[in-house]
């Protein structure tokens, strides 16, 4: 009786085994890649804004402090977005006829707010507070990146929970001295871990507090 399976069947069987293995992990690999890709996370995707506001020009070029516009970052959960009035303090004098600033002038004239697209957003069940992070030594650029180099503002981190926990589990890797919080060019020194440990003491982040930073109730309520 002739054999049911030819010799080539062996190769097919091996290929199927390998193929199944590759397909399974490949599928999940693709899913993971999509999940981490800018398509899902919006990282590094510049968003169209009504007026092409450049942080690069205003911060790196003109040297404005973050808090000139984001006034409540030390006081409140919300960092604050500048009212049209703030823009017009300068732009009623400089570039007052520039076409790119038309939406700003229109907002002032019609008393209608400018409709900015939100760049960094968290789910509704996450309660983030800017003021406490700034107070405890987390600098602006730790989360928002080199905003001073962005002609159009974009997101630089996924803001996934895993990313938040990286710091909540080991803040010493990221903390900086109080006078460096708003320095957009700050780079971690080589002995950051040792300095970070010292800063944790300075900022009253005790062992107990450190454990507490991982409680669900820190962010979800």
């Amino acid at each position: 009786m002739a054999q049911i399976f030819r010799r080539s069947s062996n190769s097919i069987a091996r290929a199927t085994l390998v193929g199944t293995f590759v397909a399974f992990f490949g599928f999940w690999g693709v899913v993971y890649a999509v999940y981490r890709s800018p398509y899902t996370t919006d990282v590094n995707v510049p968003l169209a804004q009504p007026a092409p506001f450049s942080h690069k020009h205003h911060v790196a070029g003109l040297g404005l402090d973050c808090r000139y516009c984001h006034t409540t970052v030390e006081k409140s959960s919300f960092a604050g977005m500048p009212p049209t009035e703030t823009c017009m303090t300068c732009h009623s004098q400089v570039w007052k006829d520039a076409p790119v600033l038309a939406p700003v002038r229109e907002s002032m004239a019609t008393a209608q707010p400018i409709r900015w697209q939100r760049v960094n957003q968290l789910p509704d069940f996450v309660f983030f507070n800017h003021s406490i992070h700034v107070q405890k030594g987390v600098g602006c650029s730790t989360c928002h990146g080199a905003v001073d180099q962005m002609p159009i503002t974009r997101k630089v981190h996924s803001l996934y929970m895993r990313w938040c926990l990286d710091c909540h589990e080991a803040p010493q890797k990221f903390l900086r001295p109080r006078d460096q919080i708003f320095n957009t060019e700050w780079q971690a020194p080589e002995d950051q871990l040792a300095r970070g440990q010292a800063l944790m003491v300075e900022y009253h982040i005790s062992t107990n507090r450190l454990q507490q930073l991982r409680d669900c109730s820190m962010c979800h309520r």
Partner: protein
Amino acid sequence: MKPTPPSRTFDLADVRARLDGLRGQQYWQSLDEIAETPEFKEMLHREFPNGASEWDDGVSRRSFLKMAAASLALAGLTACTKQPVQHILPYVKEPEELVLGEPQLFATAMCRGGYATGVLAKSREGHPIKVDGNPEHPASLGGSSVWMQASILDLYDPDRAKTLLRDGEISTWADFASDFNRILREHEANQGAGLHFLTETIISPTLAAQLDAILKKFPQAKLHSFDSISRDHVREGARLAFGQFVETQHRFEKTSVILSLDSDFLYTHPLALRYAREFANARRVSSGKGEMNRLYVAESTPTITGTMADHRLALGSAEVEMLSRSLAQRFGLGTMDGTSTKSESWLNALARDLEKNRGKSIVIAGEWQPPIVHALCHWLNDKLGNVGNTVFYTEPVELRPTNQLASLRELVSDMQADAVKTLLILGGNPVYAAPADFDFATVLPKVKQSIYLGTELDETAALCAWHVPQAHYLESWGDAKSFDGTISFQQPLIEPLYGGKTPPEILDLIFPQQPVRDDYEIVRSYWETQKRWPDFEKGWRRSVHDGLIADSALAEKKMELKSDAIGEALRSHQVSVTGIEVTFRPDPSIWDGRFANNGWLQECAKPVSKLTWDNAVIISPALAQQQNLAAGDIVELELNGRKVRGPIWLQPGQAEKTVTLHLGYGRERAGRVGRGVGFNANQLRTSDALWSASDLKISKLGEKHPLVATQTHHNLQSPERQIYREGTLNDFKANPQFVKQSIESPKNAETLYDTNEYRYDGYKWAMSIDLNTCLGCNACLLACNAENNIPVVGKDQVARGREMYWIRIDTYYKGSLDNPEFSHMPVPCMHCEHAPCELVCPVEATMHDHEGLNLQVYNRCVGTRFCSNNCPYKVRRFNFLWYADYKTPSFKPMYNPDVTVRWRGVMEKCTYCIQRISRARITAEKENRRISEHEIQTACQQACPTNAIVFGDLNTPNSTVAKLKTHPLDYSMLGELNTRPRTTYLAKLRNPNPEIQSEAKG
């Protein structure tokens, strides 16, 4: 298949027999429980009542399978959605002092029945989200009523009147102003003859000044005022006793004995919040002093005040009058034959107690008792030396005190005689609320030029030529006095959402001046003319900031009692009652119907009956037995030829031959929530019997109406476990440890686990609830609702036991069906240190944090409901359906932005207001200090008028909560399960009169 309400086919005689057989301290919650009906047993043992967990909305097996397959296929895809793009819209010009993300507080005032209560309204990003009592306001002292808490929902009610209407067509304010001016010019010729005004009780100085000016301009014009829950009898009683209207004020803090004659001074009185605080302070033994006052109550239907009584008599309204007559007789006024013998010895003991506590007692009568009873109270207080000590008199708070019924009667007869050309109605919905015999709905259309200022498109709006939407108090400038005379100010937190107007703005049109003034200018200019402050701007700003003018309460006034007149009145009129008596009372939730469209109030279980979404014909079990009636039976009530139909409700503690009907229901024109709910008891209410009448006929119709009460939901019934613990003051004095000794609690060491595994080195949050001062008033429940974005689920869902309230008030009865003792017990999450719920969650959606809070993580929860199945306290609530309203635009600004709005399929429960803890923790951390004692108040604690709820940190040795936990009366509910709850209770103490007590035992 819809779940049917328990059939209640049990035999009442059997229930009585079972009750008599009970030994010792045995509590019960409902008649079903005693009768041990199968429905009740099932409810007790199931996590949720029958039907709560099933999907029974008529979906066929086939379509169920289709949907199951589709949802399985699509389940994975839900993760593929991207977050929608959001926008940030900053201000054009940012208001000063506003910090986005931080709350702002404004002092303002809410009026009910005209009387102001000071409130602090919380605003976030420019929209009001919460209302609480103003601690510096003498009518609030920081406490809240259910109406204050629910008023925020009224502001955002999508069914509010949104446009100005002329004969049902949309019109404008300018059109209205010009038409109104034309009308007024006509009246100028005849000095205002035919020009009538109908207002509610006037307690606003600005409004009163405007009305004075109008009368000067139009001398022939007539003012009428009417409030359906009027205080006419109080006024007439004072007139009888003193020959003039005076206001009676009480100081409950100094009392040893209180007699309430049908008065609900802890709940419905205009100064109830203050009285409740004073009353509770005089009863609190946790503060260290070993004395309590003693409360005697005689009333027809159980009220909050009645449930707090040490001795309560269930008497019909007329019997209360007889009781007060015989009490006066004991002190030497008048004669009376045929006193009711059943309360003879009770009365003797009471009289001796009052005599013993001269100058330290209060006799107070309810608004619904006839003037003679009020006069007798004045006489008794005078006789007992209370006047000047616990009772004092002031000028009337009202600015135009008048007999409102007579005033309305005059208006109606003028309307019938076609003498009313123009009628301006400022609020009050008289078409619905006026006595039935006035037939307001028929006579109102005879007035050609009728103008109505009202908040909703109600019965009155439909019959008036013009309807101007009225602004909510959080949108208005205004002023009013509180019951003690303190002048209070209203300031708006938000521009009128729908262009609403205030009464002063309408009246100001009568004095045409350019430009038209808004309410701010009107109120301000009135106070500018008052010359109250040397520096007006400074004084005005101070007062608006504080919400009141400090020390503006009315001064005490010496009054001469006319004993002869009272004696004469006693002789000239004899009290009698025949047949079945009916009494009318404002609804404990929706009052006279003005809150009918408020879902929070409709759904919150009424204080004693625990009914939701309905009113009922409340009868005593004895009457039900006689007439063979059961709960839910629809009956036809007939009173002097007027008829109304309603469902029966059996209320233990109801006076035997008295039927009580609550007003406010059966609204034909209200919003989507209030329309057609319940029956309209006003149809039986006539001007000669506003509060009670004899000879009610009841006939059974053979139909049923499903009434939904939450009394049997979340029942913890278990006789041996002593869930509710109480004793008497004498027990406590003899053995302060009696509560602790009554049942054995496990020691902390009795565990297999390492007790040091979990240590709470930072904060250790805990709560203590004083059962001795809890009134069961529901203020905590509604405060929790507003703070935590808790949805309304509707009657059908409540019937399935799916109500979402995070804190519930369990009411227990003890003793006989006819006159039981009542006990209230608020039950929030216990935040157990050994929490049974945490062990069974497969996804760790409920777990502990390092401050000992039992957390519920909504975004992790997959809705297995294992946790609620394992919770011995039954405090977890599951979102069976999409209860939260995400769609209605007007509700969006109402939600507290600090709290997640929960979606379908998620478990939720009390969090100890974790958002408030977080806020305080962040503030303290920024300043490198510990949170201090008074920085955090949970919403329920803040609202509690009697301070029965205390929250705080156990690791702060001198915190109030830490001290209360060491109090001898402190106990843990179901502590023997070793759950180590962080919420514990202070046992209740009663202070019975030994004379009455021994007699009851004998």
